[in-house]
């Protein structure tokens, strides 16, 4: 009802172009301390966002705002007027918007209560012991209906579920107690995966109790076998992102190596329309461009750029889109082969980060296994650091893959020459 009035007012105002995103969400949330319910919540919201475009003097300006709930005709008129004026302040070089498309998801989602119940039940059925158990968890399940309409005639309606589970695990021995933190995101509840993953985390907790201080290792091979590796792969994704390229942060072109001198495994990266139970399975992106399978990097060479329409146009590219899912492949070794010789396998970071701008990476080690070639030591403390841009030359990946929500990546990644700052001699 509000949308029809808004469209009518936009027509009256004579805007050059406009886009409306109408997102309705219904969410069930449950917060637990141990296995007792701390709080239950429902979110029942609707957010309508309007973006207005103005063409002037060879520029295409735009301005956006949420059409605040409860806005009457007068308020919407005022908002459109403000956005029309503000768009004239934004002197972006002209570009074209996505051509018109029509699409409506026909699938029916599982009832939100059913998804929530699956999460609650999987958490009630974990192999906890006297010494390893669940401290607390938070369950979020959401049913999303997203409508995107434009002045060009686009009308896309997509319906999709999204969910996340935050889990804190404790392990204790004598008077010492430690915790591990995990966040899982997905479309709906994957009972088997969660049970397996959280059970493994309980085991990891046991190891952390026995950890000694990380030794001073200088430079060392580091094995990544958790979702921390996603940060590294995202650096490569940014190398073939149109905005990063247009802004000069990525200095590569189609046909170039994504980082210079790749002497190890040559990774391939693709956009994927669909991954099982991903929270990002969409037919169209947020700008109305169709999402499809597309190779972005093949054997270490940039093959296609991805990203927002505006920057793609500036680069002279057409047919780009913002993918929801990505896959990474190109590994040539088994996990066992990657776990040979001297290396540090970090299974828990405080917060592993890779700069999207220059590839600098760093993270404090909360739990790692140091393999000195003969023995394995469980270690904690200190940090790893280096530059992905430089270290990628010696990238080694496993053939087999693992999925973290919207990313399907090699299960194990090994980098050589990483600086490991220990806290013990």
């Amino acid at each position, binding site marked *: 009802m509000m949308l029809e009035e808004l469209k009518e007012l936009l027509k009256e105002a004579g805007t050059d172009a406009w886009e409306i995103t109408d997102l309705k969400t219904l969410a069930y949330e449950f917060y637990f301390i141990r296995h007792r319910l701390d709080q239950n*919540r429902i979110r029942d919201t609707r957010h309508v966002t309007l973006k207005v475009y103005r063409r002037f003097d060879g520029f295409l300006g735009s301005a956006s705002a949420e059409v605040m709930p409860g806005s009457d005709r007068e308020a919407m008129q005022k908002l459109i007027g403000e956005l029309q004026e503000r768009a004239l302040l934004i002197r972006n070089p002209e570009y074209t918007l996505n051509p018109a498309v029509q699409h409506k998801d026909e699938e029916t989602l599982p009832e939100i209560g059913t998804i929530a119940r699956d999460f609650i039940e999987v958490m009630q059925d974990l192999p906890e012991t006297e010494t390893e158990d669940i401290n607390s968890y938070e369950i979020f399940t959401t049913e999303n209906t997203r409508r995107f309409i434009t002045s060009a005639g686009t009308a896309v309606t997509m319906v999709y579920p999204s969910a996340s589970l935050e889990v*804190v695990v404790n392990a204790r021995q004598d008077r010492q107690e430690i915790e591990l*933190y995990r966040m899982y995101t997905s479309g709906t509840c994957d009972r088997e995966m969660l049970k397996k993953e959280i059970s493994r985390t309980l085991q990891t907790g046991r190891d952390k109790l026995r950890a000694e201080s990380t030794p001073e290792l200088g430079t060392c091979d580091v094995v990544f076998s958790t979702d921390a590796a996603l940060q590294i792969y995202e650096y490569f994704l940014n190398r073939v992102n149109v905005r990063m390229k247009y802004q000069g942060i990525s200095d590569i072109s189609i046909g170039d190596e994504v980082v210079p001198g790749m002497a190890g495994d040559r990774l391939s990266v693709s956009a994927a329309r669909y991954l099982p139970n991903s929270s990002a399975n969409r037919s169209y992106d947020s700008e109305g461009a169709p999402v499809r399978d597309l190779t972005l990097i093949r054997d270490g060479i940039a093959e296609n750029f991805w990203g927002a329409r505006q920057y793609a146009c500036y680069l002279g590219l057409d047919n780009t889109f913002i993918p929801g899912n990505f896959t990474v492949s190109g590994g040539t070794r088994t996990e066992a082969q990657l776990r040979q010789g001297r290396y540090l396998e970090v299974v828990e970071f405080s917060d592993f980060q890779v700069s999207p701008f220059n590839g*600098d990476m760093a993270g404090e080690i909360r739990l790692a296994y140091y393999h000195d070639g003969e023995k394995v030591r469980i270690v904690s403390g200190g940090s790893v650091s280096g530059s992905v841009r430089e270290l990628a030359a010696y990238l080694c990946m496993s053939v087999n893959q693992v999925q973290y929500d919207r990313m399907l990546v090699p299960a194990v990644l090994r980098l050589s020459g990483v600086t490991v700052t220990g806290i013990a001699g």
Partner: protein
Amino acid sequence: MKAEFSEYLTQTAPAIRTMIARLQEHFDYVSVLATDSTGFRISISQKARDISSETMMTERGNVIRVYRDGLYSEYAFNEPDLAHPEAQAETIRQALEKQIELLRLTGTEVYETGKLADEPQELFVEMETGTMPEDADLDSLVKELTAVSDAAMKQGEHLIDCRLTAQSTHVCKMFLTPNRDLRQSYVYSEGTVMPMAMKDGRMEYAYAGVAERQGPEIFAGLRDKMQEAVRIAEELLTAERIEPGEYDVITTPEVSGLIAHEAFGHGVEMDMFVKNRALGKEYIDKRVGSDLVTMHEGALAAVNVASYAFDDEGTAAGDVIEIDHGILKTGVCDALSALRLGVQPTGNGKRENFEHKAYTRMTNTIFEPGNDSLDDMIASIDYGYLLAGMQSGMEDPKHWGIQCIIERGYEIRDGRLTGRVVTPIIMTGYVPDVLGNITMASRETEVFGTGGCGKGYKEWVKVSDGGPYLKTKARLG
């Protein structure tokens, strides 16, 4: 001028009161937080520009909190039916009953909590500000930001771009219960400048900003910040890697603030005490830092982006001394955690927005200054680093680890800055060691509010932090 309270909230208050009355027939406690916060955000670079009305705190919506049989439940919505509030209250009640039925079906036990008090209280606060975001001259602001970006490109030999952002938010919140009516209105603004430089394939960037509980007039300060940031970005192009190890360090106020926030800010959020997730619980009245460490936390501890009159649960803002001359005295607490722990709430119950749960969250977290001069502090170091520029941090309240990613370090040898710069730096350590090794603190102090704070990896809220220059020992990599 005074930041005028939202007309929209004033209009919706009677309908919300009706909903509260209706829900009170079924629940033992009912409250509503209603929000109407508006603003703008401008982003300017050499390559692209953007303007929108959304900032980190813009929102319009309501969250109802109800209590029965030891359980608190919430319902967040943003399409109030002002003509039929009773019917909407009934719809909400039925939705919550359906959700609670699911809990019965799964045999879920409740973490029983007492009932919140509802003593009569009225508060109406319209804080002083310069200009209002809604009155800002955006045309002039865009021109000024563009001019600053252009000036940066002239100043920096190797700059590939200089990105500026300016955002200003008029926050209006109303907290209603059967007996309470609290309303507040204030403005905060923040601006950043980020020059990016590239030389021989190496890319570096610097970051500086302004933030205050004031209006868009504060963006005038970005020009000065730009000059400093451009100099730093250029400097970083020739910076070296640090040799990992433990060093004597001096932290700039910005890095001191990061330490305050990550070290004991998160460590004494008392909802973590309820879950037994914070070691601090066992260290009340024990030493956790040197005598020079006194740390405040609270919306009244400073006037900055996180300074409000009451929190998102209707508790008045406070100023808590968490660490007093090295001794951990107390933490900060939201209302429900306070009930569970048998303590008083401190005004730290915050939500990312009306759609999110309230947790114990930080506001302004600040070390008190000392009596040393920066020159004396540098002179006291044989070999170490002056650490500057905050990039990110991560808390670890359970084990008291700390991770701070810092932009740069200036080498100190024989009591003097050598001119050698290293980047980036990851500082790690055991919190009581880092705080226990503080031996000097400067007289000058500063507060920074351009960042956001998450709880774990979500629930983003505005915070500020700061303090003086501090001398300590830290492990750098």
